[in-house]
């Protein structure tokens, strides 16, 4: 690759001059593809934050249910209107807000569980570790969507908050296995032995000495995890058991047009495009992070 200079922190692990965070930011800024991804994601985040200012109409207003419904895209309604005469562009803009929020919050739940479970399992080791890992194997062999189907059919009509919790609770299995591996590898490192010799408690060793070494896999898992949750939420909403109607989420908008796909093509095309672009940027960023952390 042209213009790539050797990075002292990358090539010389004996002198780690940069924090993982600084390293991650530089990794993203160094590659053109991830710079573009960051910029595009930035635009989508701004759209989400400024939704009330940017949306031309109220996303849930049904101004004219008789002659204003099912309108094809036009200047007045660039993304058309839905069967309830709501403006699809406004709903897509508000949908960005909801999808990103759900993605971020659910991923926070996943990270908390994944790190805690993996760190405890790896640090305790032995029989406890074996039991915890077998349980994890079982959880990993249930496809996430199926697990969520089971849960969401058992608890119908969930609020968004509960949906976020369940999305988060089904997303930590992979990360906790990575965290466990890292903790297992670092458990007998000299700096841990030193901390033990100084009389540090297990809790302190885990939180102060081991966790900071896990920043890299966590950052990667978080970025890719948000993308995953956005797709899952849309899929569940498309099946009618995700975000409760009539709240605008990207999946709900597609669901509203799904039984007339051929006639109301704009209802699946536009929210889907926004979703794919968002997920693409997150995947690019996640991979740039993974590349630099793995090289180290």
């Amino acid at each position, binding site marked *: 690759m042209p213009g790539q200079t050797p990075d002292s922190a990358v090539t010389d692990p004996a002198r780690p001059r940069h924090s993982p965070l600084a390293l991650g930011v530089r990794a993203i800024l160094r590659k053109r593809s991830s710079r573009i991804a960051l910029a595009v994601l930035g635009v989508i985040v701004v759209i989400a934050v400024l939704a009330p200012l940017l949306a031309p109409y109220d996303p849930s207003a049904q101004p004219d249910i008789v002659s204003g419904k099912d309108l094809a895209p036009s200047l007045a309604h660039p993304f058309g209107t839905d069967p309830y005469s709501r403006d699809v562009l406004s709903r897509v803009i508000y949908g960005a807000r909801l999808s990103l929020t759900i993605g971020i919050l659910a991923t926070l739940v996943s990270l908390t569980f994944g790190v805690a479970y993996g760190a405890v399992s790896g640090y305790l080791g032995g029989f406890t570790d074996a039991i915890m890992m077998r349980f994890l194997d079982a959880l990993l062999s249930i*496809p996430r969507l*199926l697990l969520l189907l089971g849960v969401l059919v058992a608890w119908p009509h969930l609020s968004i908050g509960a949906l976020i919790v369940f999305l988060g609770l089904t997303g930590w299995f992979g990360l906790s296995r990575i965290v466990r591996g890292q903790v297992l590898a670092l458990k007998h490192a000299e700096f841990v032995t030193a901390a033990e010799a100084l009389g540090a408690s297990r809790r302190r060793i885990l939180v102060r000495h081991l966790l900071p070494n896990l920043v890299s896999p966590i950052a990667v898992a978080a970025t890719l995890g948000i993308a995953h949750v956005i797709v899952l939420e849309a899929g569940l909403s498309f099946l009618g058991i995700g975000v409760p109607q009539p709240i605008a989420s990207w999946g709900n908008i597609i669901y509203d047009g799904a039984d007339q796909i051929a006639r109301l093509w704009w209802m699946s095309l536009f929210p889907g495009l926004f979703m794919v672009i968002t997920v693409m940027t997150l995947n690019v960023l996640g991979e740039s992070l993974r590349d630099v952390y793995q090289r180290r």
Partner: protein
Amino acid sequence: MLGYFARRLGQAAVIVAIVAAIAFLLIHLAPGDPFTGILDNPNVAEKVRTTLRAQYGLDRPLPEQFVRYVNALAHGELGWSLSHDQPVSEVLASALPNTLLLMSVALVGSFVLGILVALIQVARRGTFTDHALSGITLFFFSMPDFWLGILALLAFTYWLPIFPVGGAVDPVMHEFLGLGGRIMDRLRHLALPTITLILLASASVARFQRAALLDVLPADYIRTARLKGLTERQVLARHALRNALLPIITLVGLSFPALLTGAFFIEKIFAWPGMGYAVVNAIGSRDYPLVVGGVIIGSIMVTVGSLLADLLYAWADPRLRGH
């Protein structure tokens, strides 16, 4: 080798047992029971409610219910589907062949396409072709299954009516066709759902395989092959690909959850009469036993799939054969 097989088989059995326990927990942690929707209203007599619940054993203590549940499961019974008025096992058994057909064609197709794309990319690494293909695979990799399904349906059944709208066969004409006509009819219905699923699944194969090939290229035997004068094509196809194929077996095992999830959405969109179609429709009719049955069977499929992949790996890697 035999010891490894036995150990791995035991592991899979433990996993299935835990999955069953989780499914049981799911059912009983949920508010109400499968009859809550139908029975718990003032128009139903108290006696009917208690009788029906007693018939289904819902009045027994939880541990007893769990033992009965495990026992039934071991006999292949998954409960009673309320919307089909049929045992869940029968509903799923009649739908399973269609799902397996869809998944196996998609599995083979996606690995062939994915490996091919990766080979082209690595042969022209760093060029425009490589970057363009990377962009395309990233696009399909990031695409929600159901959205590509909708787009494919929109484009190739409505705008360009090349393929039939849905189902496994033509609902009216199939009965009256000859043998050749029936086969053609089935293929025409199979085409669009499988192409969609192949496109979705091949993206991750291509991305994975490209990285695996690039990992292999710096190896000594590749340099040897180049030095003895083989063309780049020969080096890639004979020496690099063969060694980069081992991780592909692992990827096959790992791809089952995504493939199954994809099949669920694709079946729903193309009205393909498989397991996903049955389970997704059961959501609408609140047919809880059928949904949970689908979760259990789906998890067993994934477990068996990764078990087979592991065994295949142990058999294919000569370094593991001795152990």
